[in-house]
């Protein structure tokens, strides 16, 4: 187990209220595995990764029973050690590649910055390593690209440069936060193929965050579905798509147009609850067609197998019978 998160809770302390952004997040990542975190905007998927990487704003406070990387407790080690793990052993790539690269620096300078930080190499050795990295991520004629600025590259190329930067220090875990959102479909396929090949070559473990369930279903071994700061379901990718248990997962899958869709697409009525209110019980309750009275107070996490759990007061058998209305 390379990454273990148990009972992660995160709050934002604003002047007049506290926002309970993440509640009881449990996540595990094995070596060489790819897990996906799915959910809509505001569900907390990016926040989870930011909490792991210690990249939160000042008014955020979080706690966890376990936040272990390679059996090291990230909450108990020194600041320097955490700083060296997050960014080098665990690295991250972000959504908008054009905006994530510094527009005023050349590609070479930006990748150099990272290499100088970890490894003590001479200037020539660095240049060789950079060309190696750029070739690894599939950039043609890397020597010509060294002195290019980000605005001269396309979206797909910028994302490749970001990936090169992320793998430059041989990380063990790569967090990819919506890396292909906003890219063309054919480029998306290239980037996904690249990530898969890098995973095999470098024995990476990947956390893939996306709102696009179809990408996750094809790319990940296991998928976590998040809603309003909680994990509502986790299962193997194929199982989750073909046999969703939690009503939110069912609803989400029903809304995606597919060959079985009728003339009117189903939708999930209502809106996400205000996380500033102290929410007890199930956060999906007000939009759930199967809600019972007990849902107001409880929502229990039911672990029905090694790789499957879901957060609902109804039993798996009860939920299996119901399709999304």
């Amino acid at each position: 187990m390379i990454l273990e998160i148990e009972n992660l809770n995160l709050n934002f302390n604003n002047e007049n209220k506290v926002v309970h952004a993440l509640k009881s997040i449990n996540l595990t990542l094995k070596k060489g595995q790819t897990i996906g975190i799915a959910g809509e905007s505001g569900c907390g998927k990016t926040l989870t990764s930011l909490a792991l990487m210690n990249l939160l704003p000042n008014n955020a406070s979080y706690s966890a029973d376990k936040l272990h990387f390679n059996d090291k407790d990230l909450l108990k080690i020194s600041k320097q050690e955490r700083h060296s793990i997050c960014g080098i052993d665990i690295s991250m790539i972000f959504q908008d590649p054009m905006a994530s690269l510094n527009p005023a620096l050349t590609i070479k300078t930006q990748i150099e910055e990272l290499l100088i930080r970890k490894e003590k190499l001479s200037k020539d050795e660095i240049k060789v390593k950079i060309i190696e990295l750029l070739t690894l991520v599939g950039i043609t004629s890397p020597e010509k690209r060294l002195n290019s600025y980000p605005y001269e590259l396309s979206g797909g190329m910028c994302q490749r440069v970001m990936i090169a930067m992320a793998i430059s220090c041989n990380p063990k875990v790569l967090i990819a936060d919506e890396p292909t959102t906003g890219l063309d479909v054919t480029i998306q396929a290239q980037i996904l193929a690249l990530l898969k090949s890098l995973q095999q070559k470098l024995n990476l473990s990947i956390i893939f965050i996306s709102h696009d369930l179809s990408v996750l279903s094809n790319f990940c071994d296991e998928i976590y579905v998040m809603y309003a700061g909680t994990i509502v379901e986790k299962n193997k990718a194929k199982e989750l798509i073909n046999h969703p248990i939690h009503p939110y997962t069912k609803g989400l899958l029903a809304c995606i147009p597919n060959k079985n869709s009728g003339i009117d697409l189903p939708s999930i009525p209502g809106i996400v609850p205000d996380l500033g209110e102290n929410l007890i019980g199930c956060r999906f309750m007000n939009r759930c067609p199967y809600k019972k009275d007990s849902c107001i107070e409880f929502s229990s996490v039911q672990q029905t197998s090694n790789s499957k759990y879901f957060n609902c007061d109804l039993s798996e058998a009860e939920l299996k019978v119901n399709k999304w209305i």
Partner: protein
Amino acid sequence: MDIVKLQNLTKVFKIKEGFFHPAKDLYALNKLNLKILKNKTLGIVGESGCGKTTLANILMGLEKATSGEVKIFGQSIELQTSEQKINTQIIFQDPHSSLNPRKKIWKIIAEPLFIHTKLSNDECKIKVAEALDQVGLNPNMMDRYPHMFSGGQKQRIGIARAIILNPKILICDEPVSALDVSVQSQILNLLNNLKKELDLTLVFISHDLSVVKYFCDEVVVMYLGEIVEHSKTKELFNSPRHPYTKALLDSSPDLYDLDHQFEVINGEIPSPLDRPTGCNFITRCKFKTNKCSISPPQTNKEKLSYSCHHPLNL
């Protein structure tokens, strides 16, 4: 009946590359031929640089064609009167920037009425209430500002604004791309219902193939400013003719076909300033031959329309 007819539509932008260099020609659209039929939903699919936004701008009258003809209801777009121009309306991709943040939403929706009718404020408010009702929003909210609404609600407001003058053609420029999946389906349902109620013809621009497959009657695939394939939805997805269409379909992850092997197509879209000679797709096509680099393919206009020297699935 042809509501919209495009003939040899070309749009060229002059790009200056420096003080001492002559301006280069950027062919955003190159000899487009297209007919859009009444009450159909036409999907336009393509990646960045294919020209779909330029096409939408030309249909809306925001840009003028460099050459070729654009006819709406048989009338050339340049000769349209103000009343005729408002028959075509558009809804935009980003719900957050498509509404003026400093105006109350009733004023935003009533803007077309202020410009084209002589109705008083109260009469406008009545029409706005009707429009809000049609798009599924509570008319009591008309005195609020846009930032008080969610993304899905803002998109509904944008739709209310577009339909208030009873247009005949509605161009939807990626209307659900910026919305969550659960909201997306609501907006798609709304558009379908409005199409029936208001007798609309829809032009649906999107990059999301699963949405296009569900929503559109016919699909046009664009690449580097040209139409490479145009056919009925079912036929396009079941047996694509053009290699680029096939590449798009192969690259798209399918939710229910998890064993589907991604076919990755190499290379990037060439710069429109640097078009390849012959067929545009030659730099990335698996099936290319010598013929493809010599001459651009003719458009085959039998039952389906496609432009390829070696079409697939025949």
